């Protein structure tokens, strides 16, 4: 193989011998235990969208499973043990991201029939027990956690570690179990997590996007979600972009089946964000 050929191919995929046939391989890193996004059984919506892309590229998917914690990108994509990571914020620093394939927001999840919350400014928030996800002590938590503390709502807020207990299935989902059990009255969670588990807790739950959607300039409640490649892997980025565009209807159907709350439906799925 001459090097000029490798230059294109190595960026995107490896050539492997599979039963004597040259099959392209799409090397993907994902969390093995984090539904609705991904799991080792391939049941997450990111798994299903990745499969569509692989079909488009005529490639077979090969996963490297890695818990999405601190150092995830450093140990996976940047360590070159895979070439594609689904489900990251668009324009994330340090990687190259595709055009977004969905835009979602944080949501209020409540028990149906109980007090319904639609805004951080709802006075009812002061009289209910609120669950939020916590990230860590590096000065950042989820935007809803900040939005509540900005309003002085701290005493009735309960924190749930986003990492959870990794021995359990889907550790971030414990907050919705607590809501179903009545331990809290409102869970403020990232949309896809809320939409998916609200259907699976055995108790009728109501999902509402949070308002305001921008709680001050630095606290966006909505994010565009893209796939990411290494910074120097423009070839693969363009291929994945094109595949996402061509399979748009199926991507939309998968997101709908998983009840991902979307802010971008009806918008033109035009070119990439700059």
């Amino acid at each position, binding site marked *: 193989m001459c090097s000029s050929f490798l230059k294109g191919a190595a960026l995107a995929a490896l050539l492997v011998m599979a039963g004597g046939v040259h099959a392209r391989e799409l090397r993907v890193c994902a969390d093995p235990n984090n539904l609705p996004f991904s799991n080792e059984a391939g049941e997450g919506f990111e798994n299903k969208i990745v499969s569509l892309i692989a079909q488009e590229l005529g490639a077979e998917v090969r996963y490297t499973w890695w818990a999405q914690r601190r150092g995830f990108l450093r140990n996976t994509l940047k360590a070159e043990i895979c070439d594609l990571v689904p489900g990251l914020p*668009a324009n994330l620093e*340090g990687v190259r991201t595709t055009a977004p394939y969905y835009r979602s927001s944080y949501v209020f999840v409540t028990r149906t029939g109980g007090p319904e919350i639609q805004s951080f400014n709802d006075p009812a928030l002061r009289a209910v027990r609120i669950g939020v996800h916590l990230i860590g002590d590096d000065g950042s*938590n989820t935007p809803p956690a900040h939005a509540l503390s900005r309003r002085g709502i701290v005493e009735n807020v*309960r924190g749930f570690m986003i990492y959870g207990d990794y021995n359990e299935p889907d550790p971030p989902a414990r907050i919705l179990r607590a809501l179903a059990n009545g331990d809290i009255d409102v869970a403020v969670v990232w949309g896809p997590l809320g939409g998916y588990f609200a259907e699976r807790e055995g108790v009728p739950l109501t999902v509402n996007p949070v308002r305001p959607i921008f709680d001050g300039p630095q606290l966006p409640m909505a994010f565009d979600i893209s796939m990411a490649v290494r910074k120097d892997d423009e070839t693969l980025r363009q291929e994945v972009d094109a595949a996402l565009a061509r399979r748009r209807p199926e991507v939309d159907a998968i997101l709908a089946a998983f009840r991902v709350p979307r802010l971008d439906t009806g918008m033109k799925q035009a070119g990439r964000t700059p």
Partner: protein
Amino acid sequence: MGGARLALVLAISLILQPVSSVLAQPASPPPAAPPFAATPEDGQWTIPQKNYASTRYSDLSEINTETVKNLQVAFTFSTGVNKGQESAPLVVGGTMYVLSPYPNILYALDLTQPGAPMKWQYNPKPAAAAQGVACCDVVNRGPTFANGRIVFTTLDAHVVSVNAETGEEVWKTKLGDINRGETMTMAPLVVKDKVIVGISGGEYGVRGWIQALDINSGKSVWKAYNTGPDQDVKIGPTFKPFYDSDKGKDLGVTTWPADAWQQGGGTVWGWLSYDPELNLLYHGTGNPGPWNPNQRPGDNKWTAGIFARDPDTGEARWFYQTAPHDLHDWDNINELILLDMDWEGQPRKVLVHPGRTGFLYVIDRTTGEVLSAKPFHALTAVTGVDLKTGRIQYNAEKEPVNNRVVRDICPTAPGAKDWNPSAFSHRTGLLYIPHMNMCMDWESVEPNYIAGTPYVGAEVRMYPGPGGHMGEFSAWDLQAGKELWTINERFPLWSGALATAGDVVFYGTMEGWFKAVHARTGEVLWQFKVDSGIIGQPTTYRGPDGKQYVAILSGVGGWAGAIVSGDLDPRDGSAAKGFVNAMRDLKNVTTKGGALYVFKLP
């Protein structure tokens, strides 16, 4: 350096003056190691702290200010792991013990044979997933020796006891679960028949604790949490804190919002000291987590402070909080050095502590009273410590908050100095502090994510402090409360210090220079360039041949060196929580490593 000699002359002239002052002038005898730490030198180095007072001082003097220039390499040894080496080489009898970072392999080297060949190695085989949980490189701060056993912690939160002669495992106890973010990096301390250890993982919402294990069986004897109800914290009738703000029922609950103490941090991953005469164990507690400051109104007891406990029961005796309601990630886990000194004409048993906060604390170790807190780092984030209340005074303008760019926060998140321990010379009465000189800008703008949840991440950029250098090695006069001399270093100092009776003090730099300096003047008497940056703890011993040796591990890494050991992208200045911005050039001067260097005179 020019001013150093002048300062020394001044100090000597002050000592020669007749005693006439009621102020804390150096008219009284200089600080000294307590009797339990001033024992005859046996030539060994059996625990990282050297002694219970944590002075890291050796009475060996064959290597001195005259002879040190002739130091040469005696032998080297690869740890086989190219990650940050923060451990201390131990020497017991004719054997040296070296512990690697994850996977925490313990090596025994035979000092009685030429080239110190390996006697055995012991591999505890920690879970690989632990690497994904550790916050800042996969370091370990050293093994400890007691009762014929080498005891150490593993990254996956086990404590192991190994037969020091044969390398056979005696017991192995699991104390934490990496699936819940719990890891271990600290060096244990053995007190009587108990192994004292603590847990790391404040970033993951771990509720910090310290625990005592039976040295013979590895079974837990007592466990004290650092947040929550008094019963869990082991606060009872014998708890007598000095300051009023530490008095009251269940402050570990009431100084937090509703249930926030349940994930409150206050981990124990730093240094332990012990006073056998007072029968008190001293340990620091980590910063409060995982809530941001404005989400956890209150003092957030008992995080970011110092506990004195009864080692037999774990019962707390006193507590002092260096950073109530911590705003800056200032774990209070740095070394706690126990000394005896005259203070305003009275002999006091003190605990000396160069804190993350930028203050050098002198605390009465019997009561927890702060006698003095003097800055040893450029400060903008804090203005002082009120000695009446013991409370640190924060500068509200430098508080990191969302929606605001805050510039020139000094010191930074790793503090004025981090975990790497100082040394106290029993001869000069001076403290030798390897520390930092850094400031940071803080804003929150970049999108980030974790476990599928997007958020706005903190963009922290660290850079050199006043003078343009990032590291300082300072000799500190405890009575005067000021630096006597300082050596400026290009990169932050992340290595420990060692003081000796030869009036030679040792430390290492992140470029890979191992340096010997004059204990009284700071003059660099000898230096040797090793293969990789140094973040380890130097030790010294008398070999079976009767000669004095000095040992150090090289291998850059840790939080400061993650740009090299973790292959971080120098273009991403906010990596490693902002440290990469300051450390961009480190990749140009050092590569990964993991080697033991041992030096001797010809």
